[in-house]
């Protein structure tokens, strides 16, 4: 009886710990840009998701503009998922705020497989210094 148990234990150990690491795992950094034209960007909120491959969001960092250098607000539950809502604002004066196309964040993801991931980005809100909604666009691109 003990022999059978030992064999069963060995088999389980091999099957659990003997697995090879998943092949074709890629870590990618996706830059998120918001273009507010000539209007200084004071606040934004957008939704990012990967639509075609198994993905895990593994990190979120701030953007290039000084006022958006800190990581944006996001739900910690988005980690390990493939969709996240990020948002940030600044109460600085308009001269301190970025305008035009600005990198506001970078999202780090882990994908499995060789298929190139497709991203979906929806800008939910963008505002000027008075809190008034402004017309803006959001784009994203993978860092080379």
């Amino acid at each position, binding site marked *: 009886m003990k022999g059978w148990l030992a064999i069963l234990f060995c088999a389980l150990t091999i099957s659990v710990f003997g697995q090879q690491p998943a092949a074709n795992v890629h870590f990618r950094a996706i830059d998120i840009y918001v273009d507010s034209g000539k209007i200084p960007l004071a606040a934004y909120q957008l939704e990012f998701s990967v639509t075609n491959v198994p993905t895990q969001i593994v990190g979120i960092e701030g953007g290039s503009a000084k006022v958006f250098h800190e990581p944006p*607000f996001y739900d910690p539950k988005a980690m390990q998922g493939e969709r996240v809502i990020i948002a940030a604002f600044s109460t600085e004066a308009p001269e301190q705020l970025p305008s035009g196309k600005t990198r506001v964040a970078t999202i780090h993801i882990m994908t499995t497989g060789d298929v190139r991931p497709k991203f979906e980005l929806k800008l939910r809100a963008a505002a000027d210094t008075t809190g008034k909604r402004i017309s803006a666009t959001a784009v994203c691109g993978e860092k080379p």
Partner: protein
Amino acid sequence: MHDPVPPDSEQNLEAPAKLAAALKASARRKVFVPPTIDEAILKAARAQLHPQSRPNAFHWPRWVLWPALVGACVAVALIAHMLPSRQFVREDLNRDGKVDILDSFSLARELKHGGSLPAFLDVNGDGVVDERDVNAIASQAVALEKDNRP
């Protein structure tokens, strides 16, 4: 007492011969009116003079009108009461119907300007309106459960 008649007035009653001949000729001509047109005109005249005699007309009894009016008013009031009124959650500071980063931004600007802020802005319920309330609204704005998808 009465006006004297001119001596030649009797002679003026005679119509000119040409006119008399024309009148005699016109009396002889008869205008033909088709019976259908005649009947239609007669029917229209009857309908105009006696409208209540139309056989298909339906009339509500007078005693029904007031209860019906009161019932309609009650129904309208009930429907208006049952319809959902436009209410905003406390965190929706700019009252645009959704909680997003602009609400958090709004409170942050108010805090930066200083002054006393109303107690309802104490979103996290710690008794003071401060940066933590700003963060609480922002956290709600980006929460995945609530999902701000329009």
